[in-house]
């Protein structure tokens, strides 16, 4: 069964450093998303991406964040200068049609020290 994969599973970084979280969505999917879950809190939407551009982003997704689909398979989330409050689980998701169910990856746990 096709699935969304994410690497690394755990990333530890120093405050102020750049991190890139990687995702491989399900191969025939066209819509891509990033969500995050701070420990003990809700899963929160960050950004959606379709046709090589951002289609929607939340207030959390400020200038420190960017997304990219560098090739036909990867979808990345970059945080330019990490802050302590960026520590969270980051989930990538994909769907094949607008409004269809989104399939989530296992997540990357980001720890900012």
């Amino acid at each position, binding site marked *: 069964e096709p699935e969304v994969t994410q690497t690394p599973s755990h990333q530890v970084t120093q405050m102020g450093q750049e991190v890139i979280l990687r995702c491989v969505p399900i191969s025939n999917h066209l819509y891509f998303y990033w969500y995050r879950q701070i420990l003990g809190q809700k899963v929160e939407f960050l950004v959606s991406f379709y046709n090589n551009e951002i289609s929607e982003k939340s207030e959390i997704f400020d200038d420190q964040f960017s997304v990219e689909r560098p090739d036909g398979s990867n979808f990345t989330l970059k945080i330019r200068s990490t802050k302590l409050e960026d520590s969270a689980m980051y989930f990538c998701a994909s*769907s094949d049609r*607008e409004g269809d*169910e*989104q399939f989530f990856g296992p*997540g990357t746990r980001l720890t900012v020290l």
Partner: protein
Amino acid sequence: DQQVKQNSPSLSVQEGRISILNCDYTNSMFDYFLWYKKYPAEGPTFLISISSIKDKNEDGRFTVFLNKSAKHLSLHIVPSQPGDSAVYFCAASALWGSEKLVFGKGTKLTVNP
């Protein structure tokens, strides 16, 4: 911002009995609702969805009921099995104009053998 509310943080049921998980929403623009199951250290797994044109959707042991006038939905699991023990998230989206999923805080279901 609590557009999607799951007021019960936890629920415990006996194996073989019915589990009923509840969810309320406040945004009348929501027209698509989903339930996800999440095990520790894994991403949310899609379970079942319902669009606002229906009031019930069934898939095996899982049934979702939607009461639009009350802005309430529920997930019924019958019969409950120990393997169903997980955190269950209710999520909602507005099919037109937004693809983002808005999640509730989750309900931890424990099914006792």
